[in-house]
């Protein structure tokens, strides 16, 4: 009688793992991916979703099973067995979560590295700005996935100013100021973000990227858009009554379309004799 029980447990366990893997791989809860690090993110999500499903279904299964199997029958009295502990078992369920957590930690570190999150941020980005900003530091953020590998495509710098309750985008090279963010597909973009009043956060769900915009501490966010379209930019940090309305749009264009947009809007490219009006 012992062996069937063991085999049964094994089979249940395997079924559970398969179920978790299937669910993780096949149930998609995320919006479309539109930046280079979104697929990387989705990969992590699938793994976490699988592990989570296995653990959750397993534990709920155990509870429901216990409640059914060990339920006190009507008229039954007396206690269960006086088991107070079981060292090997306890070691087992200390070790398993430890291993899982360690794996998840290392894996997400790797993911983060691939997203460029571990790159030191202070150096290259600000030098590119030519010391134009007064503050000596840049804080946090995520670096472009392809910044190092794809040296040919230099990142397109864009200054972002967040204020109650709008984002303003400024293209220093083309001297365009816009309320919407236009970016070319496939080219890294480096956002240099400043806030005027309170903390805001720049979030594009389809890019899986978010960075707080903090007054007094310019932050940097880089990404490479990969899918043309219009995506919402959402302010994700409570910033006042109109926080919910603080939205904008990022428009990912084919490089040519983007070029055209720049030429159309840039006071420099127009080469018109008037002086640029934008600050």
């Amino acid at each position, binding site marked *: 009688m012992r062996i069937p029980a063991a085999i049964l447990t094994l089979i249940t366990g395997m079924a559970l793992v398969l179920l978790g893997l299937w669910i993780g791989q096949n149930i998609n809860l*995320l*919006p479309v991916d539109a930046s280079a690090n979104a697929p*990387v*993110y989705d990969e*992590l999500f699938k793994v*976490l979703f699988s*592990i989570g499903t296995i653990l959750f279904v397993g*534990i709920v299964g*155990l509870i429901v099973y*216990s*409640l059914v199997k*060990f339920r*006190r029958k009507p008229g*039954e009295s*007396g*206690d*269960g*067995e*006086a*088991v*107070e*502990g079981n060292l090997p*078992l*306890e070691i087992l369920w*200390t070790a398993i*979560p430890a291993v*899982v*957590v360690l794996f998840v*930690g290392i894996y997400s*570190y790797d*993911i*983060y590295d691939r997203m460029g*999150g571990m*790159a030191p*941020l202070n150096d290259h980005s600000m030098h590119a700005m030519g010391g134009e900003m007064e503050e000596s530091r840049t*804080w*946090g953020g995520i670096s472009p996935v392809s910044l190092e590998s794809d040296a040919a495509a230099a990142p397109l710098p864009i200054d972002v100013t967040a204020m109650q309750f709008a984002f303003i985008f400024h293209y220093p090279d083309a001297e365009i100021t816009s309320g919407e963010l236009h970016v070319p597909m496939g080219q890294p973009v480096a956002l240099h973000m400043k806030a005027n*009043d*309170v*903390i805001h*956060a720049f979030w594009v*769900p*389809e890019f*899986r990227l*978010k*960075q*707080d915009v*903090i*007054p*007094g*501490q310019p932050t940097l966010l880089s990404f490479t858009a990969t899918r043309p379209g219009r995506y919402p930019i*959402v*302010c994700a*940090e*409570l*910033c*006042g*009554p*109109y926080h*919910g309305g603080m939205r904008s749009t990022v428009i990912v264009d084919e490089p040519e379309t983007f070029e055209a947009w720049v030429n159309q809007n840039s006071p420099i490219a127009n080469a018109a004799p008037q002086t640029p009006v934008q600050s």
Partner: protein
Amino acid sequence: MTISLTPEQSTPLQPQGWLRYLSFSTDHKVIGLQYLVCGFIFYLIGGALAGAIRTELLTPISDFLPRETYNEVLTLHGTVMIFLWIVPVVNGAFGNYLIPFYVGARDMAFPRLNAVAFWLIPPAGLLLISSYFIASAPQSGWTAYPPLSITTPATGQIIWILSVLLLGGSSIFGGINFIATILKLRRPGLKLMQLPMYCWAMLGTSILVVLSTPVLAGTLVLLSFDIIAHTGFFNPSLGGNAVVYQHLFWFYSHPAVYIMVLPAFGLVSEILPIHCRKPLFGYTTMVYSIMGIVFLGLIVWAHHMFTSGTPPWMRLFFTIATSFIAVPTGIKFFNWLATMWGGRIALNSAMLFSCGFIINFVFGGITGVALAQVPFDIHVHDTYFVVAHFHYIVYGGTVFVIFASIYHWYPKVTGRLLNEDLGRLHFLLTFVGFNLCFAPQHWLGLNGMPRRVAEYDPQFELINQLSSVGALLMAISTLPFLLNVVLSAFNGAPAGDNPWDALTPEWLTSSPPPVENWKGEAPLVTEPYGYGTPAGELPLAATSGPELWKLGNSDQRS
């Protein structure tokens, strides 16, 4: 300890009857119930505020409340629920009621300090709520991040700070009292490792309270300087640093989440063995994991700040430290499962809520571990995914445990049983409503709905309405509960002194317990979880009267 205080002496000092619940009573049981009832009233207020939130979110436009009011409502909701409902109830209410029993004492170590701690709460709560009527309520969320909290109307924010300071003070006094009671007031002969698990949970919690709450207090004082005196600690336009506030705030507020949940863990550890008729599995590892959670809980705060421009090494450290909390927490959960395994489970309302707790908390814990991963959090930080995560834990976890505990200890407090049918109805409505309300919010967060917004992208309308229906069910579910609690106080079936045939010390006295807890001397219970041991074999140095150890005939249990 107050052995010399005879009832004759204490009677004239304190009002008797129900009036004593409105007085400056120093009886730990009275104080415990004061905490509970006061907390529950604030729960109803906080719930009504949640109702306002969910009503506003029925439509994608901001139509039900003015925008400022929405922010006030969500700030008050968060503050009331955390500081006036969960923290006072799982710590103050159950801690005060149970801990003296568990250590074999007649009261807490500092009864007057205890009463002071309680009586700080109602004025602080009223102050907070009144801010809405005086000027305008605070609008910057329960986190009160500057510079926003410096620029929103000052009166409301200052009142919020004052109120939280009072509540923090109350919590510190409570913590000191619990530590002294557990460590110093134990009955002679009772060793630390023989204490019921809830004592350990409260010891751990109180350590967290004592170490972290003062930091919050100091921080809020600095914040109030920024608001009143125009200093620039956290105000970048005056050369200050807004992120430092976040570090200091979360140094308290992350441990605060364990202040909200460790006592709940302790309560479940008391409830499960009794209704499963089995010893608590893995007592020693439980103790170590509590202390592990306390230690880790103090060093993970920056996981709330992954998008605040923290340097990469810091994110890495906080990711790893946070993830590792799953290990000691997991030990506790597996120990509970093992406690249930092979038991004789009585599936009453207390058990239903306990099992509901385990299920919900594991869900919330798993999303928590996901949130701990920086790259994952970068996307979902400050979205409804986080809202869903913590409601799964604070509501699905702690509030479920509070209900379980009320079903479990009601007979001790009143001498009457709660109605089981109403209890089951309550559970069903709460469980379904809760999951309907908060499960869909994970999807909302993943797909682009930020938190703390009164208006949102119309594509999320349907799911939000679903969530609101869940909230409505939760509101309805309080009705059978209230009905049950009120009616059973008068008409409930008499429970006897020990309806569950439990072994923990509070059940070894009459229900309701006498003023000084035991008529005679306190019993020495060295095996609070000795279920399954043949009758008569437990070392029970019970000395307080014949009604104590009727346990020999445990076969008469219902």
